[in-house]
Every structure is written in C-alpha cells, then in structure tokens.
C-alpha cells in the first residue's frame, strides 16, 4: 500500500451561521489518510460527517485549521483553484446519482472531460472505456430515465473515474439502492480500490456498506470518536 500522505487534517473546525444561530459542525478534527486507502466515514445525522466529507472533497472550506491534499494547502485556495483541484484529482459519486436528465449515459460520462480540452474522439474513447469498467457498454445511448437505480449509479461511477482521479469521494453511494444492487456497487468500488489503487473516501450510515472499507471512521458531535482499520 502506498503510504504517502494523501490527506492531512489538523485542527479543522467548521462554523455555520453567526451569533446565537451559530453551529459548530466540526470542532477540531485531526485526520491522516494515506494514498490507496478505502475509508468509510460513519456517524448519525448531524454528527458532522457530511461537513467533513465536503471539506475533504474541497467543495467547502474550513473555518479554522489546515487541510493538506497531497501537500497542497487547500484552505488557501480560492473557489476557482479548488474547482481546478477537483477537476484534476478528484472524482465524486453522489447519493442521488446527479446525472443530467435527458442525456445519454455516454454524454453524462463525458461531462468532466468537456472541461479538460480533450478532442471529441478522445472523449468518446475515454467515456466508452469508463462505461466498460462499470459493465454498461450496452447502455451507452440510454438516458438516466431508461436506466435502473443501480445502472444510474454505475454511470455516475463511470463519470467519476473517467478522468482517472487519485481519489474518489462517495456520499452515501448506496443510499438510494436496494440490497442486491448495493452489493454490486460496493464490489465495483472495492475493485477500483484494489485494482486501480484509487483512494476511496465514502460516507455511509449502513454497517454492511462500511464493512467493505478497510478503515472506518466514526464521527460524533463534530469530532472523530473512533478510527478503526478493519483489514
């Protein structure tokens, strides 16, 4: 396993609102995640796990503390710089799939490539390859409405990996899926982690899903309460 530090959090706090309505979602989190890890973040709702996830995914900035992603001080980056970081290093999978409606699977997968200046041919090739990896080569032309939930999530995973990111962030990737499909998706994620050495950071509240990860971090009241390496 690559033991290089991928993510390093030091004293991260996140404050929402001001005055009486202020709410401290994270109260000084320290965390190190190394390259190639498969981490599940768990915790009851309101524990701060989603906030932590958004910070890790560079979608949000901390109120205080330092966050280094591969040595880059993320808290010093502006909005556009964070966009570029996400563009080049990160992939995202959402609970609600968040595919573009009335758009074919292939075009959905191509979407991140549009911001990277690839040619049409390159985009097609890369998107086809990504769809093949999630075993959806035969559904290229289908729109999300024509796909099952599991298939939609697989398209979303293809979209996340098409740019060949180092790190994949998955926010409740199985939240909208039945148990059989959940197994399918988790197998896929595990394969991506073990075969392609993509680091995966996943938020979930299901124990079985978290069981697929090699490390489970429990968040409670804005702090890491428990951090276990399972395998």
């Amino acid at each position, binding site marked *: 396993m690559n033991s290089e530090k991928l993510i390093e959090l030091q004293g991260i706090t996140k404050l929402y609102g001001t005055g009486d309505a202020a709410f401290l979602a994270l109260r000084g989190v320290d965390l190190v995640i190394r390259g190639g890890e498969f981490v599940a973040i768990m915790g009851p709702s309101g524990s701060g796990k989603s906030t932590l996830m958004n910070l890790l995914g560079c979608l949000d900035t901390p109120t205080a503390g330092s966050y280094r992603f591969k040595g880059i001080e993320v808290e010093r980056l502006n909005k556009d710089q964070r*966009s570029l970081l*996400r563009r080049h290093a990160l992939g995202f999978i959402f609970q609600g799939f968040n595919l573009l409606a009335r758009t074919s699977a292939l075009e959905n997968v191509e*979407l991140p490539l549009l911001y990277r200046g690839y040619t049409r041919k390159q985009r097609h090739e890369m998107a086809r390859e990504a769809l093949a990896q999630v075993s959806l080569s035969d559904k290229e032309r289908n729109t999300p409405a024509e796909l099952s939930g599991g298939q939609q999530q697989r398209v979303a995973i293809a979209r996340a990996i098409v740019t060949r990111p180092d790190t994949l962030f998955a926010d409740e990737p199985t939240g909208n899926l039945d148990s059989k499909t959940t197994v399918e998706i988790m197998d896929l994620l595990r394969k991506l982690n073990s075969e392609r050495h993509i680091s995966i950071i996943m938020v979930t509240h299901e124990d079985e899903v978290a069981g697929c990860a090699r490390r489970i971090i429990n968040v409670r009241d804005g702090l890491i309460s428990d951090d276990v390496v399972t395998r």
Partner: protein
Amino acid sequence: MIAMTFNALLLAIREIRRNLMRSFLTVIGIVIGVAAVITMVTLGRGATEMVKQQISKMGNNLLVLRPGQGWGGGGAPMFSMEDVDAIRDQVPGIASVAPFVSNNATVVYQQESRTYDVQGTTQNYFDIGNWKIALGRFFTEAEIADSAPVCVIGETIRKELFGEGVDPIGSKIRVKNMTLEVIGLTAVKGQGGFGDDMDDSLTTPYTTIIRRLSGRQGGKNFNQVMISGEEGYLTAYIVADVAALMRERRKITANETDNFNVFDSKQLAETISASTKVMTSLLGAVAGVSLLVGGIGIMNIMLVSVTERTREIGIRLAIGARAREVLLQFLVEAVTLSCVGGVAGIALAYGLCVMLAEVVGAPFLFDPKINIISFVFSAAIGILFGFMPARRAARLDPIDALRHE
C-alpha cells in the same frame, strides 16, 4: 480565452439540443414578439406610403374648387367658365386650370350597358390629373370648340364594355341620346386616395356634355374647377388666393361663410399620412407589448427550469467546472437562443410583410431600423432573463447547488 469560449459554445449547443422543447418554447415568444413588431411597423409604413402615392396619383399639386362646404355641396352655386378664366388670369402660382362637370350616366356599347362617371372638361384636365394616354389620343381645343362627339375612356370601361385587351379606338358608344367615338384610352391608375377606382371615367369635351347631355348652356355648369399649382409654389397661398377671388366675385361679405371650398390634395396627403403614422405607432406599441410578453415567457421558462439547472450547475461545479466557465456556457446559451429567435422573428416578419403587403396592396418597405431595434431588444431580454438565474446559481457553493430542490 478563445478555447474557453469555443468550449462554452460546444456546451451551450449540447444543452440546447438536449432540451429541444424547452429551447423551442423559450424562443417562440421572442420569434412572435419580434415578428409582430416588425410586421406592424413595416405594414404601417407601407400603408402611409400607399396613401401618399394614391393621393399623388390624383394630380400634380392638385387643388379642387368645389361648391358649398364639405363634401356634399348640395344647393350651393356651381362655377361658370368666367370663374375658371378669372382664376387662371388672376391667381399667381397656377400651372393649369380646367373646368369640370360630371354626371353618372348609362353607357351602352353593343349589348353591354353600364353606369359610369361621365365627365366634361378641357384638355388641361389630363395635365392636371397627370393622366397618360395608353392608346389613341386626348381631345383637342378644336374639338372642344366644336362640341365634338368624342371621348376618352379608362381601363375599367374598356375591360367591362369591350373586353380585356380589345382596342376600343374608333368604336362608337352611346351615352344617353348621343353617340360618342372613343378616341383615347388612359393608362391605368388603379385605386385612388379614397379607395375609389380611378379608371372608370368617360371624359368628353365639356362643351359636348353641356350641350348634348345636361342641355344647359352658359351659366354655372361646372361642379368642380381643377387647379394645379406650379411646382414648388406653396399650395396654401393658392388656396387663399382662390378663396379671396371667389369671395370677391360672389360678393361674400366678411361675416358670411364661403359657399365653396378649396380642396388641397397635398394637405390631405399630409393629414392622412399623419394619422396613419399615429396608427403605426399604436400598432407598433401593441406589438411591443407582445414582445415584452415574449420576454416574460422566457423569464418564466428560465425560472421554472432553474431548479433543474441549479442542480446541473452544482454537478458541473463539483466535477471541476469553474464558476466563470458555467456562466459563460449559460451566457452563450442565452445569446444563441435569443439570436436564433431574433433572426427567426425577422424572417417570419419578412414573410408576413411580403404576404400582407400583397393582400393589402401596400408597398413593402424594408425598414432596417425597426429590425435592428427589435432584434437588439429581443437579444437583451433573452440574455438578461437567461443569464440572471444562472449567475445566481453559479455563485452558490457547489454543495448548496447540488442540494437545491
């Protein structure tokens, strides 16, 4: 920057294609609004021009002295040849004067018989009324002196009595109890300033009509005196001078009203074109409202789709698009849609104008100004309403945009 704009264009076209129905609905309001404004204004201008042309068809700087006040003139004294001579000799700025008497009479040629306007005048009438000869000739002074039984007819009479394209010259027709020889056919004038047919008149020397038709001789036979002003001479002066002369000849005192009136075709043309201009502005304003409604339609569709689009913006931001890239995409999208709508509107207006101009009989005058104004206006509406919600969404954090319901 060029690459980024090109990329935005690519993304925008993808979006438009992806949401063809929404794009169509967005554009249709603009198309209709633009087309309505341009059509109304163009047709209005065409109508104004048509009225001007028709009135100018009546003659060169034409003035008409008529009995009484207003149109009827019933009972008021008519005009004598002495009046005509006095006007010609005493009023400055006059190019030509012609006495004019007209009656409706039945005209018979072989089995055909119809009622036409039978008018008597001098050869000056053809000059004043700007008549051109199509076949044959006008009558001469000698024929006037002889009360010669000759006449000049219009195209409508030829068509109805002789048949289209038939040469009527030399044919004899009967009007009441006399036989007239057709010596001339006037060139077609078409519709007059009052929507009347100008080609259904039969014109004879006034002496002929007075002697043989109305039976009266000498005295006040003329129900009109046609006057044409010299080119460039202000017709208002002629109107005033003719009125003064007639008051003097008829010994009308200062506190009596005139028992005649002088009609000034130029004045009428100006009055009518002023009122058609008002109509044009009014129609244009109504059409402008429809353009505004079209704009509101765009705003509506954009706002309705903003939920979906906010999520889309969230997705784009999350996968690494910068806010300005997303914004540029939306801007290009809005500009493309508005411009397509504007161009389609102009094309539609062009088709409508050509078609309606044909129906109304007005000339089609392309007005670049109104085309540009409505195009710019439509583009501005589209960009404003298409861009504003996008700008708001692009400013959101990607997380908020993704959660937007």
